[in-house]
């Protein structure tokens, strides 16, 4: 029986982690993730979970501890945000290169400078090329459900890769919302026992992780990493199917909202997608065929499926809560790449919104949808990339 509660996103995810019974958890605080690991530490202290906590002195050490524990042969977790993820950077590549299925919630927060503790996607977008699987979450329920599924995806014997589960800092991590918890036994059964693959602690079969590979095989090694990423989509879909059987909640590679017959569409991640859906409904009520695509699996990115979902639209705006200064927003580049392969493609624009936690309001979605409506009828794009909600 599911239990309906009103909790913060951080608490929801801490519970998902607890229900998966990890062996080791590396802990280092950073706003807005801190109270997720604080909650998890209280589970350990109160005997609710038997995870071994490792308190470290930095996020670089935190990821290093995870790498060691995972290579040793355990189910391993940590969580971070912003500067913490940035400090982990070199170790992120080692976790994925060594094919270690570490599960890490990332509570998305802006990067310094200037110092800002609020939610945007700069941190995780900066880590998109680290070889980690990335799954993004709209609300507390999504974040909880995605965290549970992440164990099955990352630990799958055909995959063995680390997974980041992204949720918006403060907007989701610190807001209380209604959501449903699954029973501990259901989650335990769904996630299953941790299966080892070449553990270092198997002393009868000594092995080495992270050796020196030069021009002889490095190229092949990286090709193999690419190859395994191509298998992730199917595993994500299979795991989602099983999850739906258990929970009744449906997940895919992305969510299509009123997109089937849409003329204009927004592509938007996480919590802002929810706000946008209400505005899409009001445009539909006015007779404007608006729709929305909310990516869920961002790495590997499902290019063909996204192109298929957007191919009948006339104008699309990709909304980025992160920027690549001097370039387009990171998600715009992906959508653009996906659509390029189509013979006939929609007009495409890019809006940067909500940096450093700037509120994303329904009025912003209205503004963009009105502009898309004009582009759809005139075929003319005023400007490709633009910041919205800027104080002039």
């Amino acid at each position, binding site marked *: 029986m599911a239990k*309906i*509660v*009103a909790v913060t996103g951080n608490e929801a995810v801490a519970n998902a982690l607890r229900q998966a019974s990890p062996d080791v958890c590396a802990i280092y605080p950073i706003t807005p993730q801190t109270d997720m690991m604080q909650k998890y530490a209280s589970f350990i202290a109160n005997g609710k979970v038997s995870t071994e906590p490792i308190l470290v002195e930095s996020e670089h050490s935190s990821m290093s501890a995870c790498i060691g524990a995972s290579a040793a042969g355990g189910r391993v977790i940590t969580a971070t945000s912003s500067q913490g993820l940035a400090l982990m950077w070199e170790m992120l590549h080692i976790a994925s290169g060594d094919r270690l299925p570490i599960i890490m919630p990332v509570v998305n927060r802006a990067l310094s400078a200037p110092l800002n*503790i*609020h939610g945007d996607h700069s941190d995780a977008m900066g880590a998109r090329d680290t070889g980690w699987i990335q799954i993004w979450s709209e*609300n507390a329920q999504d974040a909880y459900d995605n965290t549970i599924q992440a164990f099955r995806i990352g630990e799958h014997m055909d995959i063995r890769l680390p997974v980041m589960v992204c949720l*918006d800092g*403060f*907007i*989701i991590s*610190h*807001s*209380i*919302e*209604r959501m449903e918890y699954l029973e501990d036994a259901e989650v335990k059964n769904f996630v299953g026992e941790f299966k080892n693959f070449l553990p270092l602690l198997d002393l009868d079969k000594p092995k080495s992780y992270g050796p020196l590979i030069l021009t002889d095989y490095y190229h092949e090694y990286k090709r193999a990493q690419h190859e395994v990423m191509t298998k992730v989509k199917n595993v994500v879909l299979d795991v989602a199917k099983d999850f739906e059987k258990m929970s009744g909640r449906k997940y895919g590679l992305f969510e299509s909202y009123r997109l089937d017959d849409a003329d204009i569409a927004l592509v938007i991640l996480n*919590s*802002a997608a*929810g*706000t946008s*859906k*209400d505005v899409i409904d009001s445009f539909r009520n006015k007779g404007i065929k608006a729709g929305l695509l909310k990516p869920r699996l961002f790495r590997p990115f499902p290019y063909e499926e996204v192109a298929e979902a957007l191919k009948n639209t006339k104008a699309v705006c990709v909304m980025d809560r992160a920027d690549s200064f001097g370039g387009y927003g990171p998600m715009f580049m992906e959508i653009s790449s996906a659509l390029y392969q189509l013979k006939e493609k929609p007009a495409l624009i890019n809006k940067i919104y909500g940096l450093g936690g700037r*509120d*994303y*309001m*329904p009025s912003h979605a209205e503004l963009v949808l009105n502009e898309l409506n004009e582009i759809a009828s005139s075929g003319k794009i005023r400007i490709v990339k633009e910041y919205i909600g800027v104080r002039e």
Partner: protein
Amino acid sequence: MAETTEIRWHGRGGQGTVTAAKVLADACLSGGRYVQAFPEYGPERAGAPLRAYNRVSSHELRMHCPVLEPDIVAVADATLLDSINVSEGAKENSIFLVNTTKAPKEVREKLKAGKNQKVFSVDATKIAIECFGRALPNAPMLGAICKITGLITLEHLLEDVKKSFGKKFSQKIIDGNLEATKRGYEEVKEG
């Protein structure tokens, strides 16, 4: 009540306003409703003005942004009436609740409330001091919100106050808060 009720709380850091929003969200879960409670996060300083929000709905709440047009405005500290515009974005039928020693009529004049806007006042700080000896107006404010909105029954609210305060405080403080919640419910006046 409309399908979705949106509440904006105004308080000062350290008054328990954020806790009040959280307790209300939890209490409103009953009957299969959807709830949200979230503060506006700034530098957290005692005494600084802050806002917190609630949404309560029979439908799934997808909106993740501050409440701009509140159905209910709850002011936990009357000194805020002089420094910020608590009526900002209020609808023509919004309800105001202010913690003040003043009569609701005076508050109505101060707010320049419209004829379809209801104004209530409660001396929540006095009730709190009398019930548990501290100037934390959140429990009586919750009692008053319960009375004027009918979102939940008093019995249900008291259960939730007991549950959330029970984790942190002694029996004496919990009893004091329960009494304060009841008195807020009974003593709130319309003007």
